[in-house]
């Protein structure tokens, strides 16, 4: 098997970023368990069981919950609800923690809204969240039908962004084209997560505030950065002009391949190519973040801390310092490593 970019950055030192490696191993075993649970439940080629969150990112730790959705991409059938009803007790029985209270996960979703309702009144916060998380941190369980449908839905969503992007209308021949419609949605989602973080404080008070704060600085920011690079790096691939009649398919294929990698691995490919000297700050900080989540005592402490308490708490402050390190290294990656990358970040990152 080909070494991952993250492994190559480890340069033979298997102990480097060990918490990330352990979380990846645990994620693989949990995915295998899920495949067994769902093996006979899904329709052959019209449904997929997709996981999101830490499991999809390959960052599953001891106390992680399971964000999952059954996506149907095919004929409507009232019997589909039974899949979900059968899954829920099986997942609980296998020791998976149930999704959070937002109802974004843990149910049945149809591909139609994910593909058709992009923007406008029909694109609810819930629909946008599902769609963007599907692109930025989702993984189908390891069953061939589930992978096929997941890939098909990803293509459907990405195709909408590309097909309706003015940059990819045939007559538009300007250089350095990127999928801007998609980038705008990625940016919108990042800002929405930040706004919803503030709203959750208003709705839920101190409950899990400090944990959400650190997650926003780390795993949520990781999603944004991965999505941002997904959009701007297409033009760095020097697309072959002879491929122009199939440019939509080529770009969708590039984006789809990106979305099927965990965001840490996507970021590692960028770091490896443009800023290998930043690897320790980026992945070292992220390793510390996962170690914090994997420490039951510290995690529970963060779940209890109010904002006032947090800024006097050494665990929170240490986590915040690691988040600063992560942030500063990412900023350097964008602005101080490669002229072409910086030019694209300036061109597309603001307006």
């Amino acid at each position: 098997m080909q070494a991952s970019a993250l492994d190559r950055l480890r340069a033979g030192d298997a102990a480097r970023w060990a918490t990330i490696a352990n979380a990846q191993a645990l994620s693989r075993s949990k995915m295998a368990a899920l495949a067994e649970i769902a093996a006979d439940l899904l329709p052959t080629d019209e449904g997929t069981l997709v996981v999101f969150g830490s499991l999809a990112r390959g960052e599953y730790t001891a106390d992680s919950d399971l964000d999952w959705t059954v996506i149907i991409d095919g004929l409507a059938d009232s019997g589909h609800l039974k899949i979900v009803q059968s899954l829920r007790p099986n997942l609980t029985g296998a020791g998976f923690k149930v999704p959070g209270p937002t109802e974004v996960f843990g149910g049945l979703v149809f591909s139609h809204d994910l593909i058709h309702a992009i923007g406008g009144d029909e694109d609810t916060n819930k629909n946008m969240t599902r769609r963007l998380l599907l692109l930025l941190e989702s993984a189908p369980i390891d069953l061939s039908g589930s992978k096929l449908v997941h890939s098909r839905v990803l293509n459907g969503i990405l195709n909408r962004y590309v097909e309706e992007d003015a940059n990819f209308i045939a007559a538009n021949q300007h250089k350095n084209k990127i999928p801007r419609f998609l980038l705008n949605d990625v940016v919108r989602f990042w800002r929405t997560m930040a706004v919803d973080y503030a709203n959750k404080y208003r709705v839920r008070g101190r409950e899990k505030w400090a944990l959400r704060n650190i997650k926003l600085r780390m795993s949520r920011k990781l999603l944004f950065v991965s999505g941002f690079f997904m959009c701007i790096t297409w033009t760095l691939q020097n697309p072959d002009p002879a491929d122009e009649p199939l440019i939509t398919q080529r770009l969708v294929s590039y984006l789809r391949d990106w979305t099927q990698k965990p965001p840490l691995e996507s970021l590692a490919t960028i770091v490896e190519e443009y800023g290998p000297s930043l690897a320790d700050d980026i992945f070292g900080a992220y390793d510390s973040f996962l170690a914090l989540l994997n420490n039951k005592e510290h995690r529970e402490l963060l779940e209890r801390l109010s904002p006032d308490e947090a800024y006097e708490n050494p665990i929170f402050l240490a986590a915040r310092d690691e988040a600063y390190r992560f942030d500063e290294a990412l900023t350097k990656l964008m602005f101080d490593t490669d002229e072409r990358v910086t030019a694209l970040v300036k061109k597309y990152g603001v307006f």
Partner: protein
Amino acid sequence: MCTVGFSTGALAYEDFAHALELLEPTRATAVELSALRSVELPALLAALPSIFGTLKNRYRYISFHAPTNFTDEPGMVEQLMEIAGRGLNIIVHPDCIKDRSLWRRLGSHLCLENMDSRKPTGRTVAELAGFFADLPRAKLCFDIAHARQVDPTMTEAACILTEFGDRLAQVHMSEVNSRGKHFAMSFGAKHAYEPFACAMSKVPVILESVVEASNIEKEIDAAVKILSHHTGYYTHAESTHEEAVELAYVYRG
């Protein structure tokens, strides 16, 4: 000039002789002899020696579609060797292949078809890659309708041609619904196929659209128009000058 024809299986269910009769008076320049069900094979094999010469005179391209419901895999390959001996491409569904080593005997006459979404394998680049790795001389029958059914955005179709385009030997064209049933091509299907005209026009195209006899010519015409898309010209030998001018205007415009 494009080479376009029909599968006998699409024209007459389990009756290749009748299908050939239906196709004979049309402008088809290719034919695929279909024995999709094993029960069809003995009759087709028995008839082949007597009809092969006539078919070779009538069509520029002839291929053969192997059965998909056999149990005796070595026996099936043995029977197909007779077809290979006549120099025909033999279209095989990858999901029917259990022991890949058996199929190496067919050499470059073996033509693997990308599958529709109901099949357990052979649908995507990832799933086809193992078959081609184990059967290095095998060619590709690119079923663009299957590819569209698997992925309506045609991204997987583009990936298949990128990865295995150098093996492309023929194309299957039709429209396939979510249940795998073949139909005449709709507006949406034609539109989706047009960007692939350049690659598809280089090899024979076999239509699998299930159509009435009265619509055979219409479906051939539709295929030729799709294939002509990349040049902007309507290139079929029997198209009229007026049609050519009109279509060139439409495509260039």
